[in-house]
Structures are given as C-alpha cells and as structure tokens.
C-alpha cells in the first residue's frame, strides 16, 4: 500500500537525510511514500490562543488538498505530525471553526483523513515482528536511547500515539532492529524547542539534561523523530561542551537512519554529513558499516 506523504519544509533542506532515508526504507519494506502534489509549511505551531483561526489555515489547506488525493496521510517530522493531527481533530469536532476555515480556504474538508506517523505505519501496518524478519544487519550491541520529546505524545487525548508518561512504541521499534533500548527518565522531556530562537541558553540546558540522563543510563546513541529536537540535542552539543567540560559527545540519529543501517543500506546513502556529531567512528567500532 502507498501512503500520501507530507514532508514539511525542514525535511526538504536541513533534514534531507531524514526524508531520503524514510523514502528508501519504505521501498524495502513494501510501501511507497507518495508526496502530496500541493503542500506548504504547516505553520510549525498549533495555535493555542482559541481565537487564532489564521494559524489554522495552512494545515487545513494541506489537509483539504491531501483529501483530494487519498484517505491516509503520513508525516515524519514530529512537529508537522502534531500540527496536522490536532488541526484535523479540530476540524472534525468543531463545526463553527470548520465552516469558518472552509469558507476562507474555499474547500469543503470535513476532517476525514487518517493521520499516521511513520512509526505508526511501521507498528500498525508493517508490524514490528515482520520488520524484525526483514532486518538484514541487526544493530546488536548498540545501546540506543529513544527520545520522544513532546510533539509525538502531547496532548495525549488528541495525539493518541502512546502512553503519556511511559510510552514504549519507540523502544519496541529499536528492539525490532536488534538494538538494546535504554530506559532513562528524560525521554519525554522537552528539548527547549523554539527557545533556540528566544532563549538559546535555556534550550542548551534542556538538551544537556536530556543527553546527560541518557548517557548516565548507558546510551551510546540518541534516536530522534524531529528536526527541532535533533537541532537541540545534536547541533547544540558543541555549546554544551563549552559549558560543561568533560561532556562526551554522543551521536544523534533520525530513527530512519538506524532503520536504513538495519535494512542493509549503504552508509553513504544515509546522509550522515548532515549529522552534527559524526556517527561513523562508533558505527565502525560496532561493526555496523
């Protein structure tokens, strides 16, 4: 089965490695990501002020256009997933806002798309036992820390991705690839998100706490589902090193990059040049190249 796919702006540029590895892996797993014909930026925040209808228009337009092409829409970026899924639920349940939005974007969208994250496709449609069978190069001996962040999980009632305090889906995925999933208390904490713009030092501190917690519990690599989190926990490691002497860098992967290694893809196609902390030395040491 093919899935309609909304890449989002960051996956077209600064997280190209996330996009490409997901597309390549899906073909090996027997499905294709069919990119939407028309899409724009989703707005990158779900508006929390109840009277801010304007910020709902870009995601609504994406959804309405997608509905003309199919019934199931998938995304990779956790921020896009959050914005798209919450907007979809709002359109389903709030008649007044739905009419207002439809009148403005000149569409008649009723909120009847099914929104799935790529990880949900792997779990629900492919199945982790089946995924395990397809693994060509198991990530044996690799201690990986699944980092959920906020956007995949919260608000729990609307996202319905997994348990709100103790999710396990991401760890199940890592185990299916043969890796050892590390448990650590900061896996659902916020990376500081857009505070990288407003208060960069605060975001660096948040990232340090998350990385420190994972490393303390034995993590050799971090695994992320979001370009925003990845920026904070990967690219900010140089700032952390300056502030906390003795901090040992740890490579940060998009989950699709690890999937790519496990599926036997050539490491040169996995876009590691865009990762801030070079993962190659560790992969070499583990015999995963």
């Amino acid at each position, binding site marked *: 089965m093919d899935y309609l796919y909304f890449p989002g702006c960051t996956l077209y540029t600064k997280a190209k490695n996330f996009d490409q590895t997901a597309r390549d892996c899906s073909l090996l797993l027997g499905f294709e990501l069919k990119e939407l014909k028309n899409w724009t930026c989703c707005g990158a*925040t779900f508006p*929390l002020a109840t009277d801010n209808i304007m910020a709902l228009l870009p995601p609504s337009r994406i959804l309405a256009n997608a509905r003309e092409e199919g019934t199931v829409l998938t995304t990779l970026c956790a921020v896009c997933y959050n914005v798209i899924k919450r907007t979809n639920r709002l359109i389903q349940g709030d008649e007044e806002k739905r009419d207002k939005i439809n009148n403005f974007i000149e569409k008649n969208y009723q909120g009847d798309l099914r929104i799935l994250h790529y990880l949900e496709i792997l779990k629900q449609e492919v199945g982790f036992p089946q995924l395990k069978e397809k693994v060509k190069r198991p990530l044996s001996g690799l201690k990986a820390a699944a980092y959920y962040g906020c956007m995949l999980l919260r*608000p729990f009632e609307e996202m319905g991705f997994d348990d709100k305090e103790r999710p396990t889906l991401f760890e199940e995925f890592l185990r299916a690839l043969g890796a050892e999933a590390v448990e650590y208390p900061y896996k659902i904490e916020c990376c500081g998100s857009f505070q990288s713009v*407003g208060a960069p030092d*605060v975001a660096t501190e948040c990232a340090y*706490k998350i990385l420190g917690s994972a490393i303390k519990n034995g993590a050799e690599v971090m695994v992320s589902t979001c370009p925003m989190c990845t920026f904070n926990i990967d*690219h900010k490691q140089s700032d952390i090193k300056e502030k906390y002497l003795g901090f040992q860098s740890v490579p940060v992967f998009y989950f699709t990059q690890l999937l790519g290694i496990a599926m036997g893809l050539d490491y040169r196609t996995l876009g590691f040049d865009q990762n801030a902390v070079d993962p190659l030395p560790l992969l070499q040491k583990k015999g995963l190249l």
Partner: protein
Amino acid sequence: MKIELRREKVHNDFAKKVELISGQNLFACYQCGNCTAGCPVAFAMEVGPHEIIRYTLLGLEEEALSANTFWLCASCLQCTSRCPKGIDIARVMDALRMVVLRKKERKDRVEIPEFPEGFLEKLPQIAFVSGFRKFLS
C-alpha cells in the same frame, strides 16, 4: 508586597481577557504547583506558571506581564498533561503572550537583526516559524 483582596479585584478584566483568549477557567487552579514542578524550563523562570495564574487572579497585571515566565514557555504541554484540574496551562501562557503582543505598542520579544551571524543558516526552519509566531506581534 501588600495585596488587597476584593471581589472586583479577583474578577478583574485582565483575568477575564486571559480566560477568553485561552479558553481556560483560571479559578479551577488550586495552586498545587504540579505545572511548575514538571516544567523543563522552570529553572530559568522568574516566577513559576502556577504563580502567574495566581497573579492574574489577583489582578496584578503589571507583575504578571513583566515576568519572563510565559516567554520561556516552549509549549511542550507537560504542565497541561499533568494538571490535576484539567487546565491547559500552555494555553494560558500563550494567552499572556497574546495580551502583550496585541497591545498597540506591538512590543516584540525578539529582534530579528540582533541574531548573530550564521545563526539563520544553522537553525531549522521550524524553529523560526514557530519562534516568530510566539515572539512577534
């Protein structure tokens, strides 16, 4: 700080405005502090999220709006997820931002020309788009 409590003061216009924009009932808050305890950026806040709610209900508009609390909120919704009274506190933080940004002075929180060189090239687009939506009028 001496605070005089009167019915008119508790049902003040500022609190009403915050309730209207956020869609939340601030009076449900019983000051347990769960939001502040779980907040990943509380360490950098001048006053915690639960205190800001109290300020608002006491009509201390100036004190509430001059705190850095709601500007530091990253909308991660940890407080919302853990509030035992079901208040969506992240919405309250956003409403406080809106109260400031919608004033006619349009006092923005960040100045784009002040970003250091190379900063714009480094950061992912989602950081700018969401950041600008939160910090600019």
